[in-house]
């Protein structure tokens, strides 16, 4: 099982101090956070993509390549890469490049993006979000698997005799996850290709995640990629920890109450009961996270949201320490002991390369 963190890259005022980090500070800090994720033993760092304030991450592969150069084992991913407004040709090129530079330590997560004004800035229409995601991904999938591509679609200029360069490392395309909160078409898309499905999980009650993952598993089997429990599932999670759980609640409350996404709405207590948000001791985080398996089955990747809502970088690094020292070792052991042998791990470059060599042998 892979454990990691994902960042939405928000630049938010710390409600307890009134301080807002500059873009320069926040960008430096994200690199520090990613490097520390590796130091404390996490497997994955995933970065969001946004093209509007108050977010900084418009160019994830640049940031991820810089992090790759300063890490050894950390798997670099996205949360998410906008398959609607980006040109799939540029995604193919950027991530193949990142794959070479990082030595294969890259996968990516496709998402549609739900910020209405962004679509027209890139010449697109949010109402065509699903058709864009389907057509653009079909092209991306082809560009990484066929050397010379002739292609015509609705949303982009046709391609004749085009080769996307660099070719994927060892001719093994990066593994792809498809992220969605509530669109069955996206679960279906992940199942159709035998790709991974990542449920954001953190903003909605668990029943939604359960239905979406169930749908993906059923359709994964329908398309002949294996049994439903062999589908590749990732989940988001959101935690804030202190050794004493009441300290965690007291410290996190002002950040929760003023958070850009859910601030000034439900109480912290309501939101923790309605969604997977866990604010408390490391043991509470362990117990809650192990419970995710009860409604999605054995899964392959767990990402936590730690750096958001104006939390200072020092606090985020302390959260990573607690995660790495007290939470992940227990989760790793417990999840691994429960997982049956026929349930695969999340694909990596090494495993995909080995599978390809075996198929060609």
């Amino acid at each position, binding site marked *: 099982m892979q454990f990691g963190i994902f960042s939405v890259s928000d630049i938010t005022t710390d409600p307890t101090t009134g301080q807002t980090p500059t873009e320069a500070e926040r960008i430096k800090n994200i690199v520090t956070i990613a490097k520390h994720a590796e130091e404390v033993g996490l497997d994955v760092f995933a970065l969001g993509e946004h093209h509007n304030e108050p977010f900084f991450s418009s160019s994830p592969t640049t940031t991820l390549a810089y992090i790759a150069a300063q890490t050894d084992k950390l798997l670099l991913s996205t949360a998410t890469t906008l398959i609607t407004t980006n040109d799939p040709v540029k995604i193919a090129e950027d991530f193949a490049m990142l794959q070479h530079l990082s030595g294969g330590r890259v996968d990516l997560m496709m998402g549609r993006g739900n910020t209405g004004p962004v679509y027209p800035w890139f010449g697109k229409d949010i109402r065509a979000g*699903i*058709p864009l995601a*389907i*057509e653009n991904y*079909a092209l991306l999938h082809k560009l990484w698997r066929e050397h010379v591509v002739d292609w015509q679609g609705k949303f982009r200029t046709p391609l004749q005799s085009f080769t996307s360069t660099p070719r994927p490392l060892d001719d093994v395309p990066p593994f792809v996850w498809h992220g969605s909160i*509530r669109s*069955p*078409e996206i679960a*279906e*898309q992940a199942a*159709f290709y035998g790709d991974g499905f990542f449920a954001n999980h953190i*903003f*909605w*009650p668990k029943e*939604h995640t359960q*239905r*979406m993952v169930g*749908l993906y598993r059923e359709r994964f089997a329908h398309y002949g990629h294996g049994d439903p429990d062999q589908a590749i599932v990732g989940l988001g999670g959101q935690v804030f920890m202190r050794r004493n759980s009441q300290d965690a609640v007291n410290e996190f409350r002002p950040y929760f109450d003023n958070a850009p*996404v*859910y*601030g*000034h*709405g*439900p109480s912290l207590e*309501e*939101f923790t009961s*309605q969604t997977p948000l866990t604010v408390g001791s490391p043991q509470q985080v362990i117990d809650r996270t192990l419970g995710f398996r009860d409604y999605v089955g054995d899964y392959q990747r767990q990402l936590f949201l730690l750096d958001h809502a104006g939390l200072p970088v020092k606090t985020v690094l302390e959260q990573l320490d607690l995660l790495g020292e007290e939470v992940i070792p227990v989760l790793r052991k417990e999840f691994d002991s429960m997982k049956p042998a026929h349930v695969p791990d999340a694909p990596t470059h090494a495993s995909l390369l080995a599978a390809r060599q075996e198929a060609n042998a």
Partner: protein
Amino acid sequence: MKQRNLVVVSAGLSQPSSTRLLADRLAAATIEAGPGIEFTVTVIELRDLAHDIANHLLTGFPPAALKDALDAVAGADALIAVTPIFTASYSGLFKSFFDVLDKDVLDGKPVLIAATAGTARHSLALEHALRPMFAYLHAVVVPTSVFAASDDWGADSADGLLQSRITRAAGELAAEVERREPVTVADPFALTVDFKDLL
């Protein structure tokens, strides 16, 4: 006997509320008007859901009690919607409830609209505010809407015009239910097209 679900949404704020009184009389009259139908009645008091509705607007998902209410409306064979008139229109709470309802669930659903206010001068708010809102949602709003002002609750009108409007509107609602099949609720997670057709 046909089994059908009648859902009553009342946006009254006080206790007791004349909005709820009107809602109850409309529900009773609807049951009376459909002798071949056995109605299961669910009353949704929006006052109890006010915080949940605001939270849904902010977070994008309904807390459990609100989800039950939204599901009840989706599963209703007929809806009675009653609001107090505030500042010349439906109350903000009433509108917010329908704002967080999935936009397709009222499609083709029989709806009886009603309102209360302190003075009869507000009566056309039903026609210029509620009826267009439900028309937008593709509901089938029965021709008679029921408005009750303070005067209508007076002793001299207990058997008067208000009751005749209630009876008439309830009869129209029951007739719409009578000629329909029971409502079916679409599964929001169901994929309705073959993925290969999307490619």
